[in-house]
């Protein structure tokens, strides 16, 4: 169940919140802020990859378990 079966009009679209920022503003940020933003981005990637790795290992275990039981 997900957005693919929910009508376009009824999909979950939270409003923008906080001050809107122009995409090209990123050109203007100082180095410290850019480094911090990169850090947060990389930590997020790391968390996602770790979760995927865990899911991958669990899926493999299940498949191998199924294969063994056959």
């Amino acid at each position: 169940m997900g957005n693919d079966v929910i009508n376009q009009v009824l999909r979950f679209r939270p409003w923008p919140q906080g001050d809107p920022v122009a995409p090209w503003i990123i050109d203007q940020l100082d180095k410290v802020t850019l480094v911090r933003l990169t850090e947060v981005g990389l930590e997020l990637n790391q968390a996602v990859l770790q979760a995927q790795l865990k899911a991958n290992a669990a899926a493999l275990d299940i498949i191998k378990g199924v294969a063994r039981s056959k």
Partner: protein
Amino acid sequence: MKPPSVILIGFQEQGNLGIGYVASTLIERGFAVRILDFRERRESILEAVRSAQPILVGFSLIFQYYVPQFAELASYLRDNGIDCHFTAGGHYPSLRYEDVTQDVPQLDSVVRFEGELTLAELVEHLVEGQDWHRVPGIAYRTDSRYAVTPLRPLIPNLDDLPFPTRPLESELTVLGKKTSPILGSRGCCRDCSFCSIRQFYGQVPGKKVRVRNPVHVVEEMRTLHDENGVSIFLFQDDDFPVWGPFGRRWIAQFIDALRAEELYGRVIWKISCRSDEVQPELFARMRDAGLYVVYLGIESGNETGLRTLNKQLAAEDHLRALAVLKEVDLAFTYGFMLFDPSSTFESIRQNVAFLRRVASDGAVPVVFCRMLPYAGTPIEQQLAKEGRLRGSVENPDYDFLDARLNSFFEELNGLVAHWINGANSLANQLNFAWQEYWVIRRLFPPVAGLQEYERLLRSVTHRSNGYLLDLVNRVCDQFEGGRGCIASPAEVQAKSRSFSEQLLADRDAFILRNQQTLLDSLKAA
């Protein structure tokens, strides 16, 4: 003959009524106006300005911390051959025209305070080739430094202004229901130390609080309802006119007008007001007439903080107002400054305990921020006097009395900024899910399982609030006494994602079950 054209550039995403009023005033006087969103690509903005060949480009400078970005855009336009008159307006340039004319040297002038009449007169002078340097209400650079003309008094009667220009299609919808920002009044008679509204209006001759005729407000709502299909109105008044006997009369006339225009029961609306203005009988009548959510500027949950911010309210006043809103079955959202210049570890803990009481039933997500000393505010002056003001014009900041709080704030901000700020933050998602819930209750026919969905929403909101407030306390312990262990940003993000996934799963399952009912109702409206 083609009418002279004017380009206005500002943030459009949240319905910029300020630009809308300026635009409609110019249009009424025969000028062609094009509004551009500041976030568009610079090349697109340049192309639009080139093709319009305007007599003036106006920058709406709402947020002072975007001064360098506006300066960059102005410089880009100038470098590419745009040589018409550049002006800027908004709270910040009005109060700090010296800084703005210096920081954005491409500006020919600054329009100070209420801009509708001043900008129209400035454009008229430019079109007619007259000397514009004497137009009241402006500032501009001179060889020596800068010059200002006498201030233009505040517009005495807001009903003299045309209805503001708005985009034809509302960008913001809730389950297919269109929303629109609207104003019932301008100004606020209070003087919170962190707020620039009073400074903005206080420096100009004229009444500081002006209220529109409620009949005209409802006429505008009727037009938006009939022509644009708007059924959710978001009042952006600094303080909605509900105060004292005057407020009661205004609300009574407003409700009568809603009945007369057949909007009673067909539209809903949101307001902002103070906690000491919330009264059960009045708010129950407003609820019946369509009020569905109230924004309260709570700001602090401890007495020192409330005194520092000059709220002239006690923490108990806020709790009483929230109890009334719950009693009369209205939703609420709120602003809260966990950190202010008087903050100590103890006051942060008191604020956390207060937020637990505010959000104890899971009806609203916990949100908070740090008070920032905006230009021209009493708190900015106080901090400067104490030597604690730091940062820059566009990024004002201050030192806490206890230096450890500076690192505490930085650490906490790094951990929870994504939880609270931004369209995809958990707090924003929870707020929006609650908004949808109230819209379903108020604008759609009864749907199956709404009570159960409310229970699920409360559960996920309650659990996420608990985690967030526990986290604040943990970081507080760590920075105060080196006790405990702080979660990593990745852990906090993973937690936020898991609450978000739970919320979306519950929400989508509920919407899917009722999809046909909701779509049928939208079609019939």
